C-alpha cells in the first residue's frame, strides 16, 4: 500500500511494515551523522515543521534557489485543513542543532483542477506525478548558496549514482537527517512519478531530495521523495522534469 510520507510525526507508527518480505533486498534509511548533514550540498536540506488543520507535522525540503525551498505538494495543501501554515524550515538540522531557520512567506503548489493525490486516490501511482511545491522566504536561506538541480530524468533511471534524504520520523526521531541509497535504478511509472523497489522511505522524508551524480561528479537534486510502499517495499519520487524546471525558474527566487 502506498501512502504519503509528509506527516508521520504525529501518526501512529505501523510496525507491520517490517513484517513484509521484500522481493528485492531493500535499503532502509539511516542517519547521516551531523557532519555530513551540515556539509554542502547536504547542508541545503532541512526539516519542515508546519501546521495543518488542528495538527502539527514534519516533512523535508531543499534550498533550490537562494530564498526558496523545493518540497512535496502534499506537505503544503490538504483537502480538510486547506493550506499549511507556520512553515518553519530548519536547514542542516541534526539533533538539536541546525544551520539556520526561517518561516516561509509564500507557498506554491504545482497542480491544477485535476492533478494530485485526490484525483486518483493515495494508492494510485498517477497521484504523485504532480506532487511538487515550493516555499519562498523573505531572506536568503544559506547566504545565497543553493543545491544544484537537474531536469534530466535519465540521471534517475540510468546507471547514475542516486541517494535520497529526508527527516524520517517513522522509526527515527524526525530531527536527524537520514539517507538511503538504492541498489537499482528508478523505474518510470506514470508521468513524472518514478518508483524504486530497492529502497524504503520513512514518513517524514516526504519533500526531501533525491540527488543524482552528473557528468562531472557533481550531485544534482533530480527528484523529490513523495511516497512509500510497504507491500512490496518501494519508494516513490517526483522527478524534476521540464515542467518542474519551469516551475522552479518562474516561481522560486
Amino acid at each position: 500500500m502506498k501512502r504519503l510520507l509528509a506527516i508521520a510525526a504525529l501518526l501512529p507508527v505501523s510496525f507491520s511494515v517490517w513484517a513484509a518480505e521484500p522481493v528485492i533486498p531493500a535499503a532502509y534509511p539511516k542517519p547521516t551523522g551531523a557532519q555530513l548533514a551540515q556539509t554542502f550540498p547536504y547542508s541545503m536540506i532541512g526539516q519542515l515543521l508546519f501546521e495543518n488543520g488542528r495538527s502539527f507535522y514534519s516533512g523535508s525540503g531543499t534550498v533550490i534557489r537562494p530564498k526558496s525551498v523545493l518540497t512535496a505538494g502534499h506537505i503544503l495543501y490538504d483537502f480538510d485543513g486547506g493550506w499549511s501554515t507556520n512553515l518553519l524550515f530548519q536547514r542542516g538540522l541534526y539533533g538539536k542543532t541546525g544551520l539556520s531557520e526561517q518561516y516561509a512567506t509564500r507557498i506554491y503548489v504545482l497542480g491544477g483542477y485535476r492533478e494530485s493525490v485526490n484525483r486518483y486516490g493515495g494508492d494510485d501511482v498517477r497521484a504523485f506525478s504532480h506532487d511538487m511545491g515550493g516555499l519562498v522566504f523573505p531572506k536568503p536561506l544559506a547566504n545565497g548558496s543553493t543545491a544544484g538541480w537537474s531536469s534530466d530524468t535519465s540521471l534517475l533511471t540510468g546507471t547514475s549514482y542516486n541517494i535520497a534524504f529526508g527527516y524520517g520520523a517513522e522509526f527515527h526521531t524526525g530531527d536527524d537527517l537520514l539517507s538511503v541509497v538504492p541498489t537499482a535504478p528508478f523505474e518510470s511509472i506514470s508521468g513524472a512519478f518514478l518508483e524504486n523497489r530497492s529502497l524504503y522511505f520513512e514518513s517524514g522524508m516526504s519533500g526531501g531530495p533525491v540527488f543524482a551524480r552528473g557528468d562531472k561528479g557533481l550531485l544534482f537534486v533530480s527528484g523529490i521523495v513523495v511516497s512509500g510502499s510497504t507491500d512490496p517495499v518501494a519508494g516513490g519520487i517526483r522527478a524534476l522534469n521540464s515542467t518542474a524546471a519551469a516551475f522552479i525558474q518562474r516561481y522560486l527566487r
Partner: protein
Amino acid sequence: MKPRTAALIFLGILLCLTIEVIYKIRHADDPVPDEVPAASEPATPSPQAPRATALPSITGSLSLPNPAQLPASPLYARITALLEKLRHGGASSLDLAQLADELSAADKRQAFSAILDFLSTGQDASTGAEFTIGENGRLAGAPTLRVMLMDLLGRFSDQTGGAEAATLARTVLETKDSADEWAVSLRNIARHEPQSVPYLAGKMQELLSNAPWLTKPSAGMLEAFDVAVFTKDPKLIPPLAAMIGGENQPLRRAAAVALDRLSEAAPLQVMTYLNQNPRVMADHPFIRADYFSKADLADPQQRQAVELYISRPDVALEEKTKLLKGLVAPASFVSENLLTQPPPPVDDAVRLATVEKTTGEWLKSNRFPQLQPELIRLQSHLGR
C-alpha cells in the same frame, strides 16, 4: 410587370446569388471531387455515438448545404481518413499531430470549412489521449477527434478574430452530450466574447448541476471549473462549496482549487459573499479562512471585509487564527488552465509590510481581544 412581382423576383435572385457566393467562399480551392466523403457512410460503428451539430453559418444569417451532399475538400478528406484510422485502432499521436499541423498551415477559411463540415456530421472517434491543458489554454491532449477539432477551431478563431468557434460553441452548449466538448466550447466563447460572462456563469451553473457528469466527471469537466474563476461570479460559490463537502474526490479537488483561485482572482467579491452568507463553507472553517487570507490589506474595502470576518461571533477562534497565519504566507496553485493565467510571481516585501502594519494596529487598539495572543506571535514572527 407589377412593381411588387419584380421586387420578389429580384429578392429571389439575390438570395440564390448569396448562397452561391457563400458556397464558393467556403470551397474556393476545392478540387473536383471523385468520391463521396466517408462521413456520409460510416464503414464501421463508431465508438463515439454520432451527434449532429447544427452548422454555424459564416454569415450568421444563412445555413449552408448539408456537407454530406457537398464535394470533399482535401482537408475534409484528411479528417475523415483520420476518423477511419482512429476507428480501426491504427492512428497514432503522430497522425493527430500531422492533421493539426495541416489544418494550422492551411488557409483558415478552408480549415474552418473542413472542420465545421465534419463536426456537423456528428461523427467521432476516441483518440486514446487524455484531456490535457497546455500553454495558454490550448489542449495538449484531446480525448476525441471532435474535441481536438473544436480546440483547433478555437485557436484559428483566436488568430482571425472570427466568430466560427464561438458560434459553434453556443450550439454545442444547447445540449449536454459531452462535458469535454462543453469545456472547449466554454473556452471558445470566453475567448471570443469576453462580455458573455453572465452567459458563461449560467452555463457553469448547468455544468455543476448535471448529475450524469457529476457522477463520473471527465477530465474536461474538471478543467472547465476554471470558467468559474474566469467569470469571478460569487454565485458559483455555493455549488462549488457543496462539492468540497462531497464524497467525489475528483470533484472535491477541482472545486477546492477553483474556489481558492476564485478567491485569489476576486478577493473582495468572495469575501463579501462569504460574509453575507455565513453558512456557506461553515463546515470547512480552515479552508474558508484560506479565502480571506488572499486579501490585500492595503485595499480599504478588502481590509474592511477581513475585519468584519474576524469580528463575526459565528466564526470560531481557530478559524480566525488560521486566517492570520495565512496572511503571512499566502498560497497559490500553479497550473496551465483552460482560461485563466497561472498566478504571477510576486514580491512579498510590500505585502508583508502591510500585514505587519495592519496587524500591529489591531494589536495596539485591542480591537479583537481574543486574537491578541496570535497577533503578538505574528508580530514576533514577522520581525524575525
